[in-house]
């Protein structure tokens, strides 16, 4: 029986046709992957199913019945749950409050009771959360777990997951998959959006591919391969694995010594961290999310002041400099969350100029012409699919990341700090970003790659440092590193 059938769905935003005559079927009891490049229309289709958007045209059937879904309320009532791509959590509320929000019958609210209920659900579904913590204190990975539990808590029979694993590390992904498979046995049907083809091939039964808002086709997992899926998505051959040419590294450029910093929840989010990076080198920083990656990114980019320790760039002490001075000193950065590093309501050109306004000011007035011309150059150089006057938030994730990269790299920084650079990006964009980082290294930059994606770390880094509970658990040359070895360090075992 079909759990969901979407027929002839079309949806446009202004001039953008996000979905065009899309057909999609979910059989009950299957895990069905929805694939497509950034901007292919996956999220739009699922937001229609969840009642967050109304389709211009098309029909939706759930368990064979035609449904009018006007709001998430209708969708929840029909047994549909959704883990959205960008977090829809209330940061100032506790985990338990977020999970029961809109889903309690009682008039009064007992913190103790809802925390117990949520903790029980957390154990039942195998998704661990701390029900009394405030969401604003959680790392991105932990927030994602809250999202997943929130949908499961609502007794969803059909679960939409929009890139749920983008912020999870391998171990967490395994746990998620285990519980998904268990839940599917008990009658859950899952729609699973991911850019990671490995995951899709591991856990899904069937795959539907979208391109430019249209259905390309649906295939059984057994009859396809990663390469075939990538080709269906992009419409051309792609190279799934980036080739790393090994090269001699240069002199030491960037030196971090005994760095200690406090986080929002823990006193020592970073505890006596030391490492050096040479020119022509990528240092990968691996680790399970929430082990100090956010704080490290913030300290290195000047947003958070360390309580102790030093950072030296070519011998110059820079740990007390402001973010602006750091840029001047030759630091390029891509922030952990690209929405935080950019301003959605400004145009692409304005965002590109943002870190270097002095250069774009004439007599205290912004030189709009220069901003525009430089933007055109960068858009061309970095292959951004947008025009200078587009509002940044209308861009797909991949293009937004290219804007961030263009801004950071066009000044040819001596040190590049890339934090989670490919999170949520499709195959093509990921390929681009990784190539670009390797190019930076070959140009002579010292690159710090902070990533929770172990495959990425292994593929790009020359040396790998593992962050565990705010400490560096060892720095290993990639030639000596194996996934098991790093995995054990990440778990804090040795």
């Amino acid at each position: 029986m079909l759990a969901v059938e979407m027929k002839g769905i079309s949806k446009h935003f202004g001039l953008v046709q996000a979905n065009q005559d899309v057909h999609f079927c979910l059989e009950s009891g299957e895990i069905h992957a929805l694939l497509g490049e950034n901007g292919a229309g996956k999220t739009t289709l699922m937001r229609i199913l969840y009642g967050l958007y109304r389709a211009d045209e098309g029909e939706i059937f759930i368990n064979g019945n035609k449904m009018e879904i006007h709001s998430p309320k209708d969708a929840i009532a029909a047994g549909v749950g959704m883990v959205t791509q960008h977090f829809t959590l209330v940061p100032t509320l506790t985990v338990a409050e977020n999970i029961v929000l809109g889903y309690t019958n009682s008039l009064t609210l007992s913190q103790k009771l809802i925390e117990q209920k949520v903790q029980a659900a957390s154990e039942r579904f195998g998704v661990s959360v701390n029900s009394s913590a405030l969401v604003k204190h959680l790392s991105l990975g932990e927030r994602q777990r809250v999202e997943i539990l929130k949908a499961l808590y609502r007794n969803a029979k059909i679960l939409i997951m929009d890139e749920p694993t983008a912020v999870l590390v391998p171990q967490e992904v395994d746990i998620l998959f285990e519980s998904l498979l268990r839940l599917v046995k008990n009658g859950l049907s899952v729609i699973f959006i991911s850019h990671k083809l490995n995951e899709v091939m591991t856990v899904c039964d069937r795959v539907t591919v979208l391109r430019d808002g249209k259905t390309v086709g649906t295939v059984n997992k057994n009859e396809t391969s990663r390469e075939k899926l990538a080709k269906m998505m992009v419409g051309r051959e792609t190279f799934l694995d980036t080739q790393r040419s090994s090269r001699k590294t240069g002199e030491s450029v960037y030196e971090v010594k005994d760095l200690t910093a406090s986080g929002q929840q823990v006193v020592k989010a970073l505890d006596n961290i030391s490492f050096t990076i040479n020119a022509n080198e990528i240092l990968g920083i691996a680790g399970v999310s929430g082990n100090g990656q956010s704080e490290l990114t913030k300290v290195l980019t000047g947003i958070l002041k360390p309580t102790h320790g030093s950072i030296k760039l070519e011998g110059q002490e820079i740990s007390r400099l402001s973010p602006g001075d750091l840029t001047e000193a030759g630091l390029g950065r891509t922030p952990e969350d690209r929405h935080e590093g950019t301003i959605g309501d400004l145009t692409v050109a304005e965002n590109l100029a943002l870190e270097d306004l002095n250069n774009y000011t004439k007599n205290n007035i912004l030189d709009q012409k220069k901003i525009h011309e430089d933007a055109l150059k960068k858009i061309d150089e970095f292959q951004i699919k947008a025009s200078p006057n587009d509002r940044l938030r209308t861009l797909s994730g991949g293009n937004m990341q290219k804007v961030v990269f263009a801004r950071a790299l066009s000044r040819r920084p001596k040190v590049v700090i890339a934090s989670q650079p490919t999170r949520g990006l499709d195959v093509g964009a990921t390929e681009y970003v990784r190539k670009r980082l390797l190019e930076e290294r070959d140009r002579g930059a010292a690159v710090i790659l902070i990533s929770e994606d172990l495959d990425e770390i292994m593929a790009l880094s020359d040396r790998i440092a593992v962050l565990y509970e705010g400490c560096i658990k060892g720095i290993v040359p990639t030639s000596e590193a194996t996934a098991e070895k790093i995995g054990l360090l990440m778990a804090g075992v040795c």
Partner: protein
Amino acid sequence: MDEFIVGLIAATLRVATPLIFATLGELFCERAGVLNLGIEGTMFLGAFVGFTAASMTGSLWIGLLAAAISGILSGLLMSLLSVRLGVNQHVSGLGITLLLISLSLFSYRIIFGESKIPPSINSFDLLKIFSDNPVLGPIFSQYLLTYIAIAIIPVVWYILFRTTFGLNIRAVGENPEATDAAGINVYKLRTSALMIGGALMAIGGSFITLAQLGSFTFGIIAGRGWVCISLVIFGNWHPIKVLLGALLFGGVSALQLRLQLKGLKLPYEIFLALPYIVTIIALTIAGRNASYPAALLKPYKRE
């Protein structure tokens, strides 16, 4: 205790009463993500409607009820503009204030004409507890509404932090997308917050005509609504702290009146300005750690 201090405390509570009601009303709106600048007009409307209904029916309670209803309607109007139609909240709030003040003045002229002696009603009686005690007697000689105002603070706290409705309000003021995705109707929720808020504001306004003055004058609210807006910030969107702010402002207002009566040789404008100066200083100190509801001022639309 000194007679001066006892009198001051009693007056402080009286002056603070309308501020407590209206500030709690504004707090509801802002916690739900709507800055309601219609507060000044809504208090004015409440003062006028309360007075008119009471003088027509002869019942102060009907006056109070009518004021509350007029406040609910004002909240509905704010909701129509800022929540449904997504009009900028500053614009719609100020517009409502201007509209309601002129509407009240216009209706007052039509109903009561322009008489030399302003019409008046028999206002609420003082409720005297401990009337034999020389200290507590004067302090606890207050209108019933003053006691209600103080009693309502923990009620508002309870609603906000210990009920499902309160959880929804806090959620929608911080992240309406999340609230919507959780299956809650954002429009209805914000509308109900505005209705409750409007009722409280209008009751605050009507306290002045129905209890304090017994008559209606054109300058009756005199910027109290704006004071309430800053008291919400001062109280950091927390009902209990709002009480502190209201008492501080009420206390300074009462003090300046008493100082004027003492006959100090200073221009009286200085005394009049005193409460506002204190408000500004208090805000400068308290406002630095203000944690605004994240979605304040942002209209919500799905696409």
